[in-house]
């Protein structure tokens, strides 16, 4: 089976699903939103998004777009459960955005069917997939922004064109690549870089989200640096949408945040681990507006 025929077969048979990972506001511990991530069956070409969307992909461009659209559709179908709790961060390939007129009605219909307002959707654009026509993309984004969509520049810091994208696309969010977060507690240079990028983004009207937070030390460092938001395995591995609506999920998210808060400000945060479940029950009713 060729890469194209394998993707086509899996798409036709519906074997594309999505998992979600929470994004946390570090000052309050509130969930800001959930990023949807494509999941395909193990041992197939869809088992790793990099096989299809990565630079070495052997899949035809038009099929990548079809898969991208199927992933967006799956994100909306499952993500509707999470919209009452936060924004829905959905990855869309630049190539799909550049041809958005072909898909716009389809997306609109999907949003209507799923009961998701465009204002609840943040479209993530990866820096890994660049365009030579940032002005054209900027115009497309402006039109979508008028409908209510917001944007995040994903994997920021990886590509050479990052600043150009930041300038032209005016994203509401900038997601700092995990490479800058890994071991940040041990690197004064990473800390200086992350703090400077955050300050620059704030001046430009974008909020920074640190990606790939995996332990208390990294989280603590980011909180000490006043980074607005974060996501990563430390707050929970990607899970089905339904999982994140449960009380268990609230605990999963809040526990690491409380631990870091307590270490950072011992006098201001709860001392007793036992109070966690009580607090999470209260915090599950956070105003998310």
């Amino acid at each position, binding site marked *: 089976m060729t890469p194209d025929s394998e993707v086509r077969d899996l798409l036709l048979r519906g*074997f594309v699903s*999505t998992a979600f990972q929470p994004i946390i506001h570090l000052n309050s511990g509130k969930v800001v939103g959930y990023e949807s991530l494509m999941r395909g069956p193990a041992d197939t070409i869809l088992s790793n998004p990099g096989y299809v969307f990565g630079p070495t992909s052997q899949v035809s461009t038009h099929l990548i777009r079809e898969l991208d659209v199927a992933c967006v559709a799956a994100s909306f179908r499952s993500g509707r459960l999470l919209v009452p709790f936060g924004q829905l961060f959905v990855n869309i390939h630049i190539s799909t955005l550049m041809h958005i007129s072909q898909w716009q009605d389809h997306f609109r219909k999907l949003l209507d*069917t799923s009961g998701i307002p465009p204002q609840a959707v943040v479209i993530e654009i990866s820096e890994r997939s660049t365009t030579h026509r940032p002005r054209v993309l900027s115009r497309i984004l402006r039109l979508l922004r008028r409908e209510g969509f917001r944007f995040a520049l994903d994997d920021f810091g990886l590509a050479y064109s990052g600043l150009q994208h930041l300038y032209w696309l005016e994203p509401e969010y900038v997601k700092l690549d995990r490479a800058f977060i890994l071991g940040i507690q041990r690197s004064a240079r990473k800390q200086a870089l992350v703090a400077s990028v955050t300050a620059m983004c704030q001046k430009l009207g974008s909020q920074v989200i640190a990606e790939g937070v995996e332990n208390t030390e990294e989280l603590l460092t980011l909180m000490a640096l006043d980074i607005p938001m974060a996501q990563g395995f430390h707050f929970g591995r990607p899970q089905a949408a339904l999982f994140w609506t449960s009380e268990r999920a609230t605990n999963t998210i809040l526990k690491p945040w409380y631990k870091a808060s307590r270490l950072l400000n011992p006098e201001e945060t709860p001392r007793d681990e036992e109070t966690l479940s009580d607090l999470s029950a209260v915090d599950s009713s956070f105003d998310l507006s």
Partner: protein
Amino acid sequence: MSYKVLIVDDEMATAFGLKALLEGPDVEVLTAVNPVAAKRILRSEQISVLLSDIRLSGTLDAEGLDLLQFAKEKCPDTKVILMTGYGDPAIMQQAFKMGASYYFEKPVELNVLSAAIHNLGVPNQLSEDNP
């Protein structure tokens, strides 16, 4: 040639709505609202396509996967389409591994569903209207 399609959904309205849409001169559609009734039909009838919801009792269980396994063991010629209103990569993974022909996260467009049934060898009104 005549075909039998079994629809399993705990929402009777959905099951009967689909029955009305898929039934035709050569296609008989049977319905069941729970796994016990579905297994009884699978044992006694020669079903071409089993179209089942995954969560049949409204709990977190995945009874549709159990039906898939039952069909694979007892009537291996029956093709299985699973649907769910609660997309879950882990369930999708299992459905694929266990040999489901199709896995759909709801809402599913009717033309997509009818095309899937058509691809499994069962003609139906919808696929004939929209080739």
